[in-house]
Every structure is written in structure tokens, then in C-alpha cells.
């Protein structure tokens, strides 16, 4: 199982980034190898639009199963849909959030934020 957390800094104790799409980095934890890894979310961070879609695509490409985040937009959740489950982050650092998830203490994110420009209001294919 692969767990991903948007983070402000490239370290395990980083706070969880408040943004899903425009997080500077992602912390990746492989549950089987017990190994932390990171990737630079540069391409989504600097995107003019569609940052959430881009970030979600990067997670899907890395076969992520679980995403722990404070919020997630409707477009990004459509990309993740069926591939990764989204859990709501708590206000502790990234590593502790992962530990809480493994202990079964995180809730599924049940609220999806509408797009900034109301993009997601329209019916998408």
C-alpha cells in the first residue's frame, strides 16, 4: 500500500500542506518497504490552471492507494476516483498523519471543494 501526503518541506516531520494541488512536495510512504520518499510537485505547483488535476495525475502514475489531505477539489477527486482513497488530514505533522492512518484513526474526506472558478459545476465527461 502506498500512502501520499502533500507537504510543505521535504521531510517526514513537515506540516501537511494546506493545498492539495499546489503543494510544493509530496511525501510518499510505502507500507511494505516502510520507506519514505518524496517527489517534487513542481509541475502542478506552477501550473496556471488545473493544478489539482496535474497533482492527482502524478499520484495515479505512482500507484498511490491512499491520499491524506486537508482538502481536495472536485476535478482532482474525479482523477483519483476509483484509484486512491482520500482521507482527511489532522493538524499534526505528515509522519504522524501516516501513523494515525495506519492505526485506523483518520476519517475519509467526505467533503469535496468546488473548483475555484466553478469549473467543476459543469457536467464533465
Amino acid at each position: 500500500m502506498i500512502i501520499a501526503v502533500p507537504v510543505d518541506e521535504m521531510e517526514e516531520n513537515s506540516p501537511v500542506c494546506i493545498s492539495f494541488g499546489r503543494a510544493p512536495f509530496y511525501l510518499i510512504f510505502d507500507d511494505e518497504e516502510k520507506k519514505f520518499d518524496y517527489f517534487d510537485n513542481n509541475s502542478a505547483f506552477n501550473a496556471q490552471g488545473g493544478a489539482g488535476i496535474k497533482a492527482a495525475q502524478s499520484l495515479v502514475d505512482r500507484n498511490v492507494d491512499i491520499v491524506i489531505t486537508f482538502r481536495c477539489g472536485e476535478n482532482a477527486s474525479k482523477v483519483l476516483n476509483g484509484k486512491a482513497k482520500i482521507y482527511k488530514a489532522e493538524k499534526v505533522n505528515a509522519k504522524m498523519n501516516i501513523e494515525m492512518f495506519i492505526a485506523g484513526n483518520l476519517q475519509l474526506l467526505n467533503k469535496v471543494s468546488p473548483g475555484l472558478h466553478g469549473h467543476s459545476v459543469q457536467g464533465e465527461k
Partner: protein
Amino acid sequence: MKIAVLSGKGGTGKTFVSVNLVNSTENTDYYDCDVEEPNGDLFFQSKLIQELPVKVLLPSFDKEKCNACHECVDACSFNALALIGKDMLLFESICHSCGVCSFVCKQKAISEVPKQTGVIKIGKAGDSKVVTGKLNMGEAIGVPVISGVLDLMDEDRNSIIDCPPGSACSVVESTQKADYCLIVAEPTSFGFHNFKMVEQLARVLKKPFAVVVNKAESKNNIVSSYCKKNKIKVLDTFLFNRKIAQDNSRGEICTSVDDKMKARFISLLDNINDDWQRSLK
């Protein structure tokens, strides 16, 4: 001559100024580029001559041919595509119809299919052509409709372009073909703030421009003092006026029912023309 009428803030009187400019002179047509809420024709009540659909191209994916190589997703500047396994996901409202996805696809798995996003109405009112762009409800990108409206401009005639509010893509597109920008500014904090954004835009686009102040309580106001300080021409100032408001609310064109207003708009046009001629030198 092609004059773009813009404002920054909405509701400052772009349509009021545009419609009356058209109505005050011969040989002049009206182009409504405020495609999210076109309302100039409420005043002209033009006779409909023709309706043209506006279509954009959206990608369509052939799952059989796609080998999930990811190139289209990476090439999309707007992040309108996602690839999940072998399934393509298109976010239509983000797609700018640039066609790069089908261009880069080596498998020829992407074709482009037209989708109507708006309509252009061409009408006639007196000797003026009245062209109205209308974006379909729920569509996010007005630029294709605007560019369709401006393609109908007649080189032998004068054009007044009623722009959308703001200073974003749609306004840039609307001013693209203009010789001159007329900024209608409302002397409130909000109006002043957005006026300065449009002023910057006119400078970036290197268009000659001047200002008309509308809905003012006095000739000396927040906009006029800024213009004085920065050597920007204020060509006219319309004070709050019950008669204008009433005529406007009834859908009357002020210059049709009020000779003084007509004289005023004729001189405004002369001033614009003089200023434009000077800028060419």
C-alpha cells in the same frame, strides 16, 4: 476607426457610452463582446439578419488505438486531461481547444469534434450593423465567441467594441483589433481600483487611450485627480443625472431623445478622433 470601450469594474456604463457613440454618427457599427451578458441590443432593438453558431473543437479518444503513452496529458498546457489506466478523462471546461493533444498523439487515437459554445447574432438598426456575441450558459471560455464577433468587423466602417468588464483574456481579445481604447471609469474605490488595472492593460497593449468618467458626483473626483497627475486625458464627465437614468432604464438611447446629449457625444467622438490622429504621428 475601431474604438474599444472598456472599464474594469462592471456597471460603469460601457454599454451606455458604446450605444450612444454608435447612435451619434453615421457609418458606425456596434460589436457586443460582453458575451456573458450582452445587452447593447436591448437599446438598438435591431432587426435580426443572421445567426451564426460558434463552435470549438474538443478532443475525442479512440480507446482501441490509445496505448496509454501519456504524451497528450503531458503536452496539455491547461491540465485538461488525465489518464487513469487506459481511460482518458477530459475536463471540458478547462480545455482551450488548442489541439495539441491530437497533434502529439503518435497512435492517431485523438480526433477533434466540434462543440457549440455560443452564438453570434447579426442585426440591423438604422444604418448600423449590431453584432452580438452570446456565450452559452455554463461555458467558461468566451474568447472564441469574441473572436468570432470581431471577425465580422468591416474595414470600411467605424466600429465600436463594447468590451466585457475586467482585464483578463476576454478583454485582451476584445481590444486586439482596436485602434483606440476608451475607458469608462466610475469614481468609487472599487471603480478606481479596476480602472487602474485597465489603464495598465492599455499601456501593455500599447493602445492610445483616454477616459470618460461616469456616475460622478463632481467633476473633481478620485479618477480625475489621478488622471491629472498622470497626464491621462479625461474626455468627458457624466454626473449623476435622473433623466439619463430614466431614459436608460426605459431602454431609450439618450442621444435619440435628447439633443444636448447628442451634441455631447458628437464632440466626444471628435475628441477621440483628434486624440487618435495625434497618437499616429
